[in-house]
Structure formats: structure tokens, C-alpha cells
């Protein structure tokens, strides 16, 4: 084991992943801007991706990496639809504040 190729412990990756996910949740809950909320979702997805990749590397199993591709693909589709919705909402309501988009409420 040389100095340059020292194994980063598994727990660190997972810790980073958990911190990123919690930041995403936090952002989702407290930010008012719809785009920021959307970015928080992406952050959560990528936090999960990180843990997938970590475990795939750890157990030398390729399944985890395949899952990451799936998640990225879904995230891309979601980004397309989500951004379209956001644009439509902005056109209709002239605002992106989450609190004010409550038309479904009676």
C-alpha cells in the first residue's frame, strides 16, 4: 500500500452521502423557491448515487453501478418534465414561491 493509493474508509463515503442527503432534505423543506427545491431533489438523488457507487466498489458488484445509471436516467427525465412544469407554473402564476402554489387546496 503506498501513500498515494491509500484506501479511503467506507464510512467516510457513507457519511458524505448522508450529509448530502440531509442537506437535500433540509433544502427541500425550508427553501421557498421552486427551482431551489428542485435542485434539492437532485442533490438527494445524487447522494443516493454516491452510496450506490461506494457499495458497488466495496463489494465488487456491478449491479450498484447499473442502478446509478438508472437513477441518472430517471433524474434526467424528471428534470425535463419538472422544469417544463416550473415554466408553466411561472407563466400562469408569475411566481415560483412554493407557499403560493396551493391551488389544489379547497
Amino acid at each position, binding site marked *: 500500500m503506498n501513500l498515494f493509493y491509500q484506501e479511503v474508509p467506507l464510512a467516510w463515503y457513507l457519511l458524505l452521502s448522508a450529509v448530502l442527503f440531509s442537506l437535500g*432534505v433540509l433544502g*427541500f*423543506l*425550508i427553501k421557498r423557491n421552486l427551482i431551489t*427545491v428542485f435542485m434539492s431533489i437532485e442533490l438527494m438523488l445524487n447522494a443516493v448515487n454516491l452510496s450506490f457507487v461506494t457499495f458497488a466498489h466495496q463489494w465488487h458488484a456491478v449491479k450498484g453501478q447499473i442502478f446509478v445509471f438508472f437513477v441518472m436516467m430517471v433524474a434526467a427525465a424528471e428534470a425535463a418534465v419538472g422544469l417544463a412544469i416550473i415554466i408553466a407554473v411561472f407563466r400562469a402564476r408569475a411566481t415560483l414561491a*412554493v*407557499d403560493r*402554489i*396551493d*391551488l*389544489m*387546496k*379547497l
Partner: protein
Amino acid sequence: MNGTFNIWLIPLLPFAGFMLNGILGSRMPKWLVTTVALLAPLAAFGVVVNAARSVFGIGVSTSSLPYIETCPMGWINIGALHIDFSFVLDQLSLVMLLVITGVGFLIHIYSVGYMSHEEGYARYFAFLNLFLFFMTVLVLAGNVLLMFVGWEGVGLASYLLIGFYFQKDSAANAGKKAFIVNRIGDFGFLIGIFLLLANFGTLTFSEIAAKLTASPAWQGGVLTTIALCLLFGATGKSAQLPLYIWLPDAMEGPTPVSALIHAATMVTAGVYMIARTHVLFDHSPFALGVVAIVGAATALFAATIALVQNDIKRVLAYSTISQLGYMFLGCGVAAYSAAIFHLVTHAFFKALLFLAAGSIIHAIGGEQDLRKMGGLRKHLPVTFWTMTAAVLAIAGFFPFAGFFSKDAILYAAYLRGPGGIALWFVGLVTALLTSFYMFRLWYMTFFGESRSPEIHPHESPWSMLGPLVILALLSIGGGWIGIERFAAYLWPSVGERVADSTIPHLELNLSIAAVVVALIGWFIADRLYREKPAHAAQMAEALPGAYKLLANKYYVDEIYGATVVKPLLGFSKYALGWVVDVGLLGGFAWLLGGIALFSGAILQRWQSGNLRSYAAWLAAGAAAVLLFVLVPWTTVWPDSMQLILKVTGR
């Protein structure tokens, strides 16, 4: 038994006619509807005649009766209860079938002329064929339950045809009245069926008869109850006291319907039913006495009402009730063959009377009021002569059909001791009244001056007059079979022997008495309505109370209305409608709705519409799940496992 008669075809052919005309009739040309409607009863009549030829040994060798056709699959098999779907042809049902399909076919022909300009031509004939279907099922039925099917079915056909002009409120109401009153009677019939089943374990006529014959000592008691229940059913269908009230109103239907259903065939179903279950009545002298009293009372009661009615069809309706009373009287003195004999001759002359009345109504443009008729003899010669035959027949003049059958009943009543003589006397008075009101009708329609000169009557087409002529011949000659021959023929079915009197010439003397009272009735009608028509009005003024009582039909409808209908409607409206329907059921529905509304109002608060609050709940939920999964509960709280096991019940 040689060969089969295929009696299952007898009901099936009219049913096929009903299906064809009922489903496709409105899309078929009129001639095709007519052909189908006429062929069905004609073919059924052909099957009956074929069977009759064999039975009477005309042209072919004689067959023995009863002849039974049973559906091989059975019908009702529940536990110990086995009821066959079987048709029985015996002497009694053969006579009935000849009358039903024969007279029925004639009335179908008549209807072609009578209904030719009416709306719903195909519907009319579909219902008429339906009626024949159910009536033949009723008559052919080998057990009480199948008879009940036909019994209910003819009630349905009757309802449909009374309400044929359903745009008219009075017709629709009359149909409902007939149906509901019949339902009341059917209730008694049903109870009778249940009692039969409970006490005999079978509903087949022949098996019931065999069980009763095997135990001649079995009298009264439950048999009386069963017989009275059946009698109650019969009073509904056959328009006897106290359930006769629907029949006069049933005249709202087309006149041929009145002739076929409400005079010749359906209303005689009660008489047929009593004759068919006569073994029960023979074992219960009390029930038999009730039958006789109901019959005699109805005969007199209805005849008195008929005296003052001014609607030609209502006079005939009350006359039908009265004549049915005679038949019940005959049954009640155990002279079943005489009752059936009267049923047959009555079918001839009463159908004729109704059809002739229809011809008159048709001729003068729908008018039914006797007071607006008069002087029609010259305009309607065929109708006049055929109706004269019918009037003479119903009044009981020798040698017309009614004479023989009515005399047979009165003679049989006379032989039943002192009570029988009282019944005979009531019958004799009824005969006087019958003769009077029939000749009153006869004089008011055909004699004197026309009371509506603006009407120009025209004789009916031959499709209507043909049946009149045939029925007139039957009304004249139908009685010549004679009761002795008829009773001897019917003996295997109804099993009664008319005991002959020891008094010499009694039957002859009674006959002479009957003809004399009929002559008196004619004479009075002649004085009142031909010589001095004003006399009748004077008499009505001299006895205002009696006249009003009769003209209002003893206020029976009003009494029933006040004592039964109104309380029942009130009970339905307030007790059932408001308390049960609105209060109980409605309250329960409101309660359910209220719970939903209330809980919705609370749970609604969750649905804030705020995206972040939803997300917060989601995150909280996920955190809770994580907490549950990750925390080592068994070490933190050692008893938790026991709690979980207890709650899940493992």
C-alpha cells in the same frame, strides 16, 4: 292410451303468438299480426279438439283419462320437496280447454274487427295470446303450484288488458284495483298452498286426493282452514263477496277483453279451482257451506245492483258476478258438475252478451249509457237477434242453455235439506232479478225511440257478427247435452253423484217455478221499460232511499275506501313513509353522511396545499421508519417484543 296428444302445445302456441306479436308486432304489417294472433288460438283449439275426439271416441278409438304429460327434468327439487312440471288432461280440464280455446278463438276473431282502428293493435293481441297461455296453464296444471303460476299469470294479463287504454286515468286505476284486490285473494290462496304442503307433503292434485280418499274419517280442522283459504283466493279471482269490487271497474278494458277474461274464462278460474280441489271441500262440510252461502249472497247482492245500473257493460259485469255466485252456490252444494255446466253455458251466453254489447257500442260511436240508446233493433238486426238469444239464455227460458244449467244448480241446492231450500229460494229470487235486469237492458237498447237521434248506427262487420252468430247457436243449443249426461261424463273428475229426489216430479216443478219467475221478471221489465218508460223513473222517485243505495252499489267502494284503503294509505304515508322511510332509513343515511362530513372536516386540515408541509410529513414518516428499524428496541426496552407479539396476536 294410444298416441300422444301433445297437450304441452296448448299453452305453448299462444305463448309463441305472444312472443312474436309482443316483440316484433310493432314492426310487422297488420295482416301478419292478425294472422299470428288468430293462428295461435286456432292451433291450440285444434290440439284440444284432437284430444277431445280421441276422448269421446269420434272417428278414432277412445282413450282413457286422465292423460298426463310431465317435464322429464322435474321442476322444483329442494330437499324432500319434489314438484313436477306436469300437465293433466282429464274430463274437467278438457271441458275447460274446449271453452277457453274455442270461445277464446271466437273472441280473437271478433277483436280483429273491433280493434281494427285502435292504437296498439299488436300489443292488444300479444296480451290476449298471453292470457290464453296462462289460462291454459292454469287449467292443465297437475299441481297446485303450477296452477298458481297460471293463476297469477291470468291476473297479470287481466291487469295489462284492463289498463289497455293506459292514457285514461280511470283505466289505469281500474287495472291497479283489479291487480291489488286479486293480490289480497292470492294471499289466501298462497296460505292454502303452504298449508297443503305442510299437511300433505305434496301439491299434486291426484296425490292429495288419494291421501284424503284413503282416510275418509279425516274431517274438518286443518282441512276446513285450507279449504277456506282456497275459497278466499277464489273469491278474489272470481269476483265474489267480499272481493268482487274490481270486476265492475274492469269494464274499462276493451269490450272483447271483458267478454273473454272478465266474463267467460278467467273469472271462472275460482269455480274451476274449487272443482279441482273438491276432495278437500268434500271433507269439510263447514267450508262447503261457506262456499254455498258466499255464492248465494253474491248472486243476490250483485243482481240487485244490476237492476239500476245505466252503463251497459256494468250491468253485464254485475250480472257476471251474480252468475258466478250461482256457480259457487253449485259448488257449495257439492254439485260440481252442475257448477261446471253453468260455467260452460255462461261462457257462451255471457261472452255473447258482451260481444253484442261491444257491437252496439261500436255501432253508436263508443256510447255505453243505456239511457242514450234505444230503437236499435232496426239498425242492428243481427246484433239484436243474437243478443235476444243470449238474454233468453241468461234469464233461464226453455230451451236455451241457461235454463238447463241454472236449473241443475237450483235443483241440487233444493235437495240439501232446509238450508238448501233457503239457498234455492235466494237463487230463485236472483233468477227473477236476472230476468228483470236483462230485459230492462234489452228494452232500453233495442226498443222504443232512439234517445240520441243524431247518431246513425251501422251494423258491425262480419268479423264481429260471425262470432256472435256462432255463440248465439251455442247459447241456444249448448244446454241440450243435459245435466245427466254432463255429470256422467264429468264424474271421474269431480266424483259426485247427484242423488235423485224421492218426491215425484220435483225437478219438473222446480223448473216450472224458475221459468215462471223469469216470465214475471220479463213482464215487469216490459211494463216498466216498454209500455210506460216513465214508470221506471216514478218508481225510482217513490223509493229514493232504496234507489240511491242500489245506484251507489251499496256504497261498498266507499266503505272499503274508508275502512281499508284510507287507513292503509295513511299508515303507508305517515308510519312507513315518514317514520320509517324519512326518519329511520333517512336518518341512518344522514348519520353516515354526517360522520363522513365531520371526519372530512378534521382530516381536511392535513391537506394544507402547502408542498413543504407534505414534504415534512413525508420526511417525518421516513424518519419514524428509520427509527423503528435502526434502534435496537429489545435492548433499549426489553419488554417491547412481548408487547408486539401480544398486539399482533402471534
